[in-house]
């Protein structure tokens, strides 16, 4: 099954780190990604720009509304994601716990709604 790990953290925290700490942090994510690839569980990942760059769009009665800012204002912001393919929720949870983001933020684990792609064996 595929799971999306949504990494939420207080993004100002990154700016408060020293350059060495920032470098260490990046290295931890590189190592984590490497481990996911080695395990054959990696499907994709990205880091997102800060929420100050966000724009929200919706169409109401045929009119497009464009608003400055993120959809939800909260203390922690969505800062990136990993898409992984693992046998079950327990495997997804243990990958989430290993993610560096779990130590400085919160990770939401969401199963992907399987549409037409064949799923992996569950048995």
């Amino acid at each position, binding site marked *: *099954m595929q*799971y999306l790990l949504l990494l939420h953290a207080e993004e100002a925290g990154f700016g408060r780190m020293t350059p060495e700490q920032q470098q260490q942090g990046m290295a931890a994510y590189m190592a984590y990604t490497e481990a996911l690839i080695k395990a054959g569980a990696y499907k994709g990942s990205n880091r997102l720009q800060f929420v100050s760059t966000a724009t929200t769009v919706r169409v109401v009665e045929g009119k497009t509304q464009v608003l400055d800012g993120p959809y939800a204002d909260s203390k922690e912001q969505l800062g990136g994601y990993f898409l992984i393919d693992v*046998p*079950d*929720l*327990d495997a*997804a*949870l*243990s990958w989430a716990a290993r993610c560096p983001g779990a130590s400085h933020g919160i990770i939401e684990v969401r*199963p992907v709604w*399987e*549409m*037409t*792609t*064949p*799923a*992996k*064996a*569950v*048995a």
Partner: protein
Amino acid sequence: MSSPEGDEQARATADAVARKSYGKLVAFLAARTRDVAGAEDALSEAFASALTDWTRNGCPQNPEAWLLTVARRKTIDMLRAARRHPSSSDELQLIEEALAAPTQGEIPDERLAMMFACAHPSIDAATRAPLMLQAVLGLDAKRIASAFLASPAAVSKRLVRAKQKIRQAGIPIRVPGREELPARLDTVLNAIYAAFSEGWTDPTGADAARRDLTEEALFLAGLVIVLLPEEPEALGLLALMLHAEARRRARRSDDGEFVPLAEQDQSLWDQAQIAEAEALLHRASQMGRIGRFQLEAAIQSAHVDRRRTGAANWSHVAELYKALYSLTGSPVVLINRALAIAEVDGPAAGLNAMPDQTVEPRLTEYQPYWAARSELLARTGAFQEARRANEIATGLERDPAVRRFLERQRFASPE
């Protein structure tokens, strides 16, 4: 040909298999499809077919295997009907293979795996015990609801949602690996204890649905022990519940009044259950891994021993509560420890050891806190304060017999 005797025999056989095998068959199917609701549906259809078929053709040699064969076929039919995308046929084929894999002799018992799925940390904590009672023991939502003092509709909805989550979030129906086992077993044991406690809050046993729940909880704990014999906390939980169960009859007088432990008639205690509890606790202690349930069982054991021998052991009890507090951090444990300290060092020392309700605001609505305060205050001679605490305790109690007991205490105290 159908005959009244054949009907009756078919029904009796089906009932017997249902009692013995329901949870096993649901677990077998669901472990392969991850679809608990689907497994339950397939099985209830299989039972319906059994009644017609067995009446006509006589009961099969192995009714359990017969039911499994039919339920497997129904499960595969349901899976095929539900899949519209041809691309998911790979997955379907794998599930079919897993379902069709020959089961030599006994059907593998995967009820423990099912219990771990029901008590998974991603399932809402309040739903874990009800889900276990339904998926493993086959209790219907109505009975579970009456036991947990909830509306059947609300319980049904929660159960449906939890089963959907198992399927959609991919919660495995599997016993976790060694690394995760201790933490995960904890949630299983807590859910069993929650079921037991719900049964236990009906001490007169007047409500059959709730009384049965303590038996179901004892059965589930027994099952965990058979399947995980090396887990001392599982042994501790069963020992704790047996100790409580053993004294059930002594907790009420003939006219339904509450009888505190110190005044209970020991001849009403179930000696066999106490002996079994002691043996389990002894077995657990050999394993050298202490835990919450073992400590609570040890406290019960100490109470029984004191009543039997007449030898005061309150400082030992206070020590056990201290150890329990260091594990749980629960203010409720502090209340009981304070009562034990009062027996050793006097009521003033006990009052001193009570948790502070200004630090733990939840205690202001907790009956045992006020009852303990009232008792300790009365013993220091602060009768007015004691009466006030007693009134609050009485107002918070939902069991009328305990309310009457508290009222008797209040009027017994001097003005």
